[in-house]
């Protein structure tokens, strides 16, 4: 039992150790990469940070009615040949 808890503690130490060291290294590599890219391959117009972490959560650029119309169209387009 104790050995089990001990194993658990060990695992925690190693686990958090690996997680932190890996992500710290990743921070380093990322900074290096960004520095390198912006230093040697700068882009004319840099892309601004998109306003959401998920394309799926992209902002609604279309008003509701248009959207509904289009959705109907899509549904029809798909359902063209009826039941599968």
């Amino acid at each position, binding site marked *: *039992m104790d050995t*089990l*808890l001990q*194993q*658990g*503690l060990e*695992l*925690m130490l*190693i*686990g*958090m150790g*690996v*997680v*932190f060291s*890996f*992500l*710290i*290294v*990743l*921070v380093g*590599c*990322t*900074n290096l*990469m*960004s520095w390198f*890219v*912006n230093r040697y*391959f*700068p*882009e004319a117009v*840099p*892309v*601004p*940070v*998109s*306003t*959401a*972490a*998920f*394309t*799926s*959560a992209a902002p609604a650029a279309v008003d509701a009615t248009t959207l509904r119309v289009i959705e109907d169209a899509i549904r029809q387009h798909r359902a063209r040949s009826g039941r599968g």
Partner: protein
Amino acid sequence: MDKLEKLWFSTGLFHIEPGQAIMIAVCLCLLFLAIRKGFEPLLLLPIGVGGLLANIPMAGMAESAVSQALHLGSPELIASIANALGVDPVEGIKALYKAYHQAEPALRMVVHEIARDANYSDGILYLIYTVGLTTGVFPLLIFMGVGAMTDFGPLLANPRTLLLGAAAQFGIFAALLGALALNYLGLNFSLADAASIGIIGGADGPTSIYVTTKLAPELLGAIAVAAYSYMALVPVIQPPIIRLLTSQKDREIRMEQLRPVSKREKILFPIVLLVLVALVLPDAAPLLGMFCFGNLMKESGVVARLTDTTTNALINIVTIMLGLAVGSKLSAEQFLVTETLGILVLGLGAFAIGTGSGVIMAKIMNRFSSMPINPIIGAAGVSAVPMAARVANKVGLEANPQNFLLMHAMGPNVAGVIGSAVAAGVLLNFVGG
């Protein structure tokens, strides 16, 4: 007429066990939470239905042909199976089933054939589970899709926030220890069980499912339900913890506008991450590999049609199948045990501790850094994308109506996905290996 008798014998009512009835009720609750309360419906609805189907008496939709033959078969059939296995039928079904699982593959095939000849065939949920989860294919494909829907822009604009994603993984290991500690209260969790329970704190569905199917498949149902329920409860769980650990002044900290991130950086990041994983952490390669693949497809912009399918048709199909497969593990003997209570408690603890450690990490970083971080966004480090980031934003606005933290919170939020995948790799290596 004997046929009428056979008819009555073939109804569910005649065969239903209390456990099955309770599980059906539990699944109906899951459906209620998914549909009425909007708890992660994309997964809890299929899981609920899968669990319901799995608990239909006599239908055996979640069982192999052999298991059906043993549980529903005629005495003659069971005798012939026992004979094939070289076991005395009187030892009972359990013994037969055990013998079957310990038998050589060739012999198992013979038994499977006997069951097939007696018109028992593998249930569809059993097939989906075997094909998609025991192989790990479903969670990996979903991870690919999630990668194709993730934007690392905010993270690249402020890489330090990766550390918040690291700190938040503390919840995983705390819950792991907690699970082992519960053994003193009479529960019975192996190290593998504890690791699977801990990973709930990763607040990442596919990661939890991937790890659990490899380390403790019998806990899959409870763990998946806990993981997705608590992800849905993030808006309830996190705010009090954040407020507890931060002063009004902390929460009012304004963070400067994130720098624009170039397309090239976004394309290179998944490649850098992938190479780093290859060199340092092979055990996390399947999860992070598929994740980076999806993200590279998205950011490269040259395979739009593949990205489109990955983030729609493919991930949707796999999500349905994954849900049904997970639900098929919601059987009474596996779910209606005190361990499940322990899992629910520990899972909640994992979320809470992860949230807390993320916030505290942010405060520590503020000690040593000139450009301050609003500790609220540390809570987003548990991942639960994008819910946790939205919660951080909401709490931030309460403290200061001009304080838009959403973008800043997305950094630790996606960092949390990487963090828990790394933690999963460690667990699979040390516990599984």
